[in-house]
């Protein structure tokens, strides 16, 4: 564990959440807590609100849930408004962040009391979360993989989110045109321009991710192969395609699919239909992967992303680990925490007693029925 201790205290550029107050968020009606640098452990029974605390931290920093759920679901059943407020430090500067959402209304993000957007948050803050639902990244439907990709690629390339938003706007206009039997073609040049940029960014990110994640997976699973392939709805795509290359392919495919799109009144070509194929031990994970294989592979993915973001952003991302140690013994827990070495702040949940070494490094909080008590 010496590795962790030295890593925690020798990082100059870091990101940490100093305090958080929560109102009306999932089962957390009113909570206020201060956190320590290093390890913060949320300990409590099932359904006490530990995972919701991690989700609140992620939403505070990046304006949306890591589980990709809509704000109406984040809202407490009995509340009409949720509000998260916190003090977050990054690269030596403190920011006051707030996220507020009213039922039926729009979400409002503020940074130091000034209204802001997602892209601004992504440019300042970075967070990686891992949890039991991550197995879905490999075994679930393609939309889960795209949501996962978008959340982390937006942190890796801040420009990406803006381009993706433009693409999605052009896409909803084209879909509306198809539904209303209007001419969709005026929106197509933009779908091609933005779509090609989205695909190019995804291809680059996934190729690096695949390389790094397969190395981690090989170590964690004692020799199993993890392969990751980007599979857009395009024929003849080369391993390295330029933005212009994607533009040409998209253009071709869109004109081929024109009649079919008009018939089904939906856009069938573009990055919104992208797929990522994972192979574990030589077989496609989605159909042949075991639960355990998918979870281990998902942890390898998150480890890889954590290191990629750390390198790219020049500071370790906020690390949120939900029940990842539940199935591991103490040695493997220590090994995994070591693999996430150099973190500046780690939040983790556990339903069993937290590993002793980790407890020594930080603060322990007991979570009971949506409330939090400082145990340290």
């Amino acid at each position: 564990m010496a590795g962790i201790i030295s890593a925690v205290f020798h990082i100059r550029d870091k990101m940490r959440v100093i305090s958080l107050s929560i109102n009306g968020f999932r089962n957390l009606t009113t909570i206020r807590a201060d956190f320590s640098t290093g390890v913060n452990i949320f300990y409590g029974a099932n359904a006490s609100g530990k995972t919701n605390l991690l989700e609140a931290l992620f939403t505070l920093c990046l304006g949306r849930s890591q589980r990709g759920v809509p704000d109406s679901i984040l809202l407490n059943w009995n509340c009409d408004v949720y509000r998260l407020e916190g003090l977050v430090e990054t690269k030596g500067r403190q920011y006051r962040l707030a996220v507020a959402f009213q039922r039926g209304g729009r979400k409002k993000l503020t940074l130091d009391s000034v209204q802001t957007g997602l892209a601004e948050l992504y440019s300042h803050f970075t967070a990686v979360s891992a949890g039991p639902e991550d197995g879905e990244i490999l075994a679930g439907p393609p939309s889960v993989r795209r949501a996962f990709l978008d959340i982390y690629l937006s942190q890796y390339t801040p420009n990406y989110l803006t381009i993706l938003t433009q693409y999605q706007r052009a896409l909803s206009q084209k879909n509306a045109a198809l539904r209303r039997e209007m001419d969709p073609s005026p929106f197509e040049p933009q779908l091609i321009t933005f779509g090609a940029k989205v695909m190019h960014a995804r291809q680059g990110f996934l190729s690096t991710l695949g390389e790094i994640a397969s190395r981690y997976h090989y170590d964690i699973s004692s020799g199993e192969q993890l392969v990751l392939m980007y599979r857009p709805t395009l024929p003849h795509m080369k391993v390295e395609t330029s933005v212009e290359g994607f533009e040409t392919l998209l253009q071709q495919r869109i004109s081929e699919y024109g009649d079919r799109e008009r018939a089904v009144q939906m856009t069938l070509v573009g990055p919104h239909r992208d797929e990522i194929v994972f192979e574990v031990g030589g077989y496609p994970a989605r159909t042949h992967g075991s639960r355990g294989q998918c979870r281990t592979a998902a942890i390898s993915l998150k480890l890889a992303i954590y290191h990629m973001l750390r390198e790219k952003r020049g500071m370790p991302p906020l690390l949120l680990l939900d029940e990842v140690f539940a199935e591991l013994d103490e040695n493997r827990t220590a090994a995994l925490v070591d693999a996430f070495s150099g973190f500046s702040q780690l939040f983790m949940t556990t339903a069993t007693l937290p590993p002793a070494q980790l407890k020594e490094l930080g603060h322990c909080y007991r979570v009971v029925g949506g409330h939090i008590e400082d145990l340290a």
Partner: protein
Amino acid sequence: MFNSAESVERLVNWLARLPGIGRKTATRLAFHILKLPAEEALELADIIRDVKEKVSFCSVCCNISETDPCHTCTDPKRRKDIICVVEEPMDAAALDKVDEFNGLFHVLGGRLSPLDGIGPDDLKIKELLARLNDKISEVIIATNPQVEGEATATYLARLIKPMGIKVTRIARGLPVGADLEYADSVTLTRALEGRQEF
């Protein structure tokens, strides 16, 4: 609060419907109007009536006007061979302040937005095509640089170019006097794409 003055409450409610005006501002405005001398307040009422009765649309450029055709379309000092296409009358007013532009305008009255049910037939495109003849040397498309504005520009360019008329699009990039560091990434990308050689 307004139990004793129902008409004041009606005024507040009405003012609060204006864009950018909340209830607080509406109340402040209503009480300001209440305090005004009668002739001033009625002058406002007259101005509003005039706006509704006298202002209509120019049958040529579709801009708002009190005469038909409007002063811009009949101004002998303007170049008649260049037409600048904009979405709304406000855009034409903004461009008209620029000395560099001395041509004519055409106001579409909106932009393509299938999500809002707005298609080409809902815009003044037929009126624009009717104006295009061999005396027109250039059509400048100055719709807003958003997804819908760009799509409208694409649509118009496809219609007009085959007629042999030069079609141009206003440049997109950095605002003059702004700092690079505050520009968003899409704007910067556009600015880089549109860079010019010294």
